[in-house]
């Protein structure tokens, strides 16, 4: 073999930027999200003067711990090119289920695994529908949404208070560092993000998730375990739904069957703003975390302004639109290179 093909130009210092852009075009949307987050935080600080305080920033994380957990699960699903609309109602169902079990005196070490298993079970159902019955993810997870919400109402029609000490401990304990503080719920959310990021980046399972999003057909022909992976992403999303149910119950001190109505859409918005392509194949768990923080910051700014929370959704909607257009442009550009 003498023919040597050299396609990669040896990076001179001048076009190192270009090499980076070409190699890592997929992080650009996430970088854009970080930029927007910084602009938002800086703008809020300038406007209100007391926005960037440790207490406020800590609350930013802790008030949205459940959203962060849901976003991690959703990232797996969306990167495969799927969607999971069930997460909000799964969270409500596991939350109310847990609260009612605790109220009837079942010990917490049974209740928590049952909550997680309940979420994973609905996820499995959706995954099996998608993979083995060829149901569109939108439809399968819509069925999951109705199922979860229905089951939540079956468990209880009204709110159930949680007075179980270990559950309350999750929210009421504060680990303080100076003026910063974090609760176990926040720590759990951050651990989930870390695990999610590692699994996506450093395991064969995670890479298969990306491969499926790139081309499911190719992934199958490459001998990757497509079926198992596709079911698993919904199981993970369901599991995250169950965990979010636990966090939300701890956060609010109660289970309530009407929690999380429309939350699935917030989660999808966060994930997309964080740079994950809705068509799959590109995205980062850490990007979704940035997306959640953007969402959280907007919510907080709106409440600082004392404006109607409806504005949150208008602004998030506008951002979402902007990001989808930006992503289209980036994808179109990288396609043109071929």
């Amino acid at each position, binding site marked *: *073999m*003498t*023919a*040597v*093909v*050299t*396609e*990669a130009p040896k990076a001179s210092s001048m076009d190192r930027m270009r*090499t980076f852009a*070409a*190699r890592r*075009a*997929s992080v650009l949307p996430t970088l854009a999200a970080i930029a927007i987050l910084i602009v938002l935080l800086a703008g809020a600080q300038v406007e209100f003067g007391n926005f960037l305080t440790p207490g406020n920033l800590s609350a930013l994380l802790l008030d949205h711990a459940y959203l962060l957990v849901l976003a991690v699960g959703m990232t797996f699903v969306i990167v495969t090119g799927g969607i999971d609309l069930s997460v909000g109602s799964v969270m409500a169902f596991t939350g109310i289920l847990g609260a009612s079990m605790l109220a009837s005196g079942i010990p917490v070490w049974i209740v928590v695994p049952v909550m997680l298993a309940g979420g994973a079970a609905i996820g499995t159902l959706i995954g099996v529908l998608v993979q083995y019955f060829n149901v569109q993810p939108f439809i399968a997870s819509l069925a999951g949404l109705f199922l979860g919400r229905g089951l939540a109402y079956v468990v209880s029609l009204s709110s159930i208070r949680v007075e179980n000490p270990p559950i309350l401990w999750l929210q009421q304990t504060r680990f303080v560092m100076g003026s910063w503080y974090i609760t176990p719920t926040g720590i759990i959310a951050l651990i989930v993000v870390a695990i999610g990021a*590692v699994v996506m*980046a*450093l*395991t*064969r399972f995670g*890479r*298969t998730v*990306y*491969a499926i*999003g*790139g*081309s499911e*057909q*190719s*992934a*199958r*022909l*490459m*001998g*990757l*375990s497509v079926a198992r992976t596709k079911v698993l992403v919904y199981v993970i999303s369901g599991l995250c739904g169950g965990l979010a149910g636990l966090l939300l119950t701890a956060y609010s001190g109660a289970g309530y069957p009407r929690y999380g109505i429309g939350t699935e859409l917030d989660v999808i918005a966060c994930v997309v703003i964080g740079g994950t392509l809705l068509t799959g*194949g*590109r995205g980062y768990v850490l990007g979704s975390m940035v997306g959640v923080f953007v969402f959280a910051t907007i919510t907080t700014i709106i409440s600082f302004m004392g404006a109607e929370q409806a504005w949150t959704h208008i602004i998030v909607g506008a951002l979402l639109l902007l990001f989808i257009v930006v992503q289209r442009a980036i994808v179109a550009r*990288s*396609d043109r*290179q*071929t």
Partner: protein
Amino acid sequence: MTVDTDVRPLVSMRGITIAFPGVLALDGVDFFLRPGEVHSLMGENGAGKSTLIKALTGVYAIDAGTIEVADEQRDFSSTADAQAAGISTVYQEVNLCANLSVGENVMLGHEPRGLLGIDWNAVHRDAARHLASLGLDLDTRSPLASHSIAIQQLVAISRAMVLDAKVLILDEPTSSLDRGEVDQLFAVIRSLRERGVAILFVSHFLEQVYEISDRITVLRNGALIGEYLVEDLPREALVTAMIGRELDELSALSGAAERTIDRAGTPVLSAEGVGRKGVLEPADLDVFEGEVVGIAGLLGSGRTELVRLLYGADKADAGQISVAGERAKMHAPRHAIDRGIAFSSENRRAEGVVAELSVAENMILGVQAQRGWMRRLSKTEQDAIVAEYMEALGVRPADPTVPIGTLSGGNQQKVLLARWLAMQPRLLILDEPTRGIDVGAKADIQRKVAQLAAEGLSVVFISSELEEVLRITQRLVVLRDRRKIGELDPTEVDLDGLVDYIANAGHTERSATR
């Protein structure tokens, strides 16, 4: 049948039978693949080539017969099984993930892992090593999508080598490569052959088959015709074996080039300085009544881009187009269709057929769109059109109610041709109408084009196969590097002359102006 038995086959497929509802796709076919050989599997579309390959790669389960790999009987139930047995496949449409890096595509599913999970440095190091062993020096961290199809194909082969493939199946690997890229691919194939890999090669390009193969197996209608050494099988014999009839049809068309065209009148289509920045330098083109104008050039020379501008599929930013002497705005396909111009895209699957609809529905689509959706074609009108063209083009199977997706590529192409012809256009633009289809269908399509032109239809014909362009056109427009470099009379130039013109013409003029 000449089969030497000195080398023990690595793959022995005996009595392979696969039946689909209503069709016996393979009927007791034997196929043997020996280490260190390039073995071409030949046959028309529908002969059972793809089915045989899919049986060997575990996509289809076999209904009868045995598959032995390295003297061990195998029962494949998935592609992963076949890969585990050392059988890797590189498909026509590159089956890699364009969203991932080159290195990851090579190593996916086989990534070296450390304590913390995948060791990315090792992934890229190993990938670079595998690529280098095929003579490729790529930035393994660059996204696959940033490389040409040819490179992607070589990356796919590298991937097969990672799996330590003993058997490499190349299914139409060259259909979208230009000559230089084919040479590069062949160099890789030869080096793999030297390493003792058994290579199964499928291509519609006879030249390439003869260039690279050691042995040829011919299938026809799901049955084995024979296995031959290349030197024992002259081309005519191969074509005869493949289609089961003497193929004078292609040569019978050779008179088409001599047909004289009256170029005194107003051209049906006249383009002056039509171009688009970054896509095509401004070019002129006239097409007269009854004329078949061929567009020749390498892949990427601007052939498709030119006709897309003429048709309005892409918007030109320079020049003007007249249809029958009248200036016409071509900003959308609608404008072209209204003026009787039809365009059959090279991308049959994405821009041509609607796979789920029936053959009849696909045929009617164009006429119906032209009439507007409010004025539905009656069942009788539809049936008349469908019957006429099924017959005229010899669509197989002759059942217009089956979904078009189940037809072979050649027959799909015939249906598309019918769709445009049913609209009775005055100018028909055919972009690679014969790519990836079998010899018989190719002959049918060429004959139909020649016949229609003789009846007065104007045709713009693009094909990568220069013999074909030379055979059926009356004028040749040659493009290179997104620029029109000249026009040729096909009666005055032979294949070598045309190749030379495509490769060299214009270079001297340009250097003179410098």
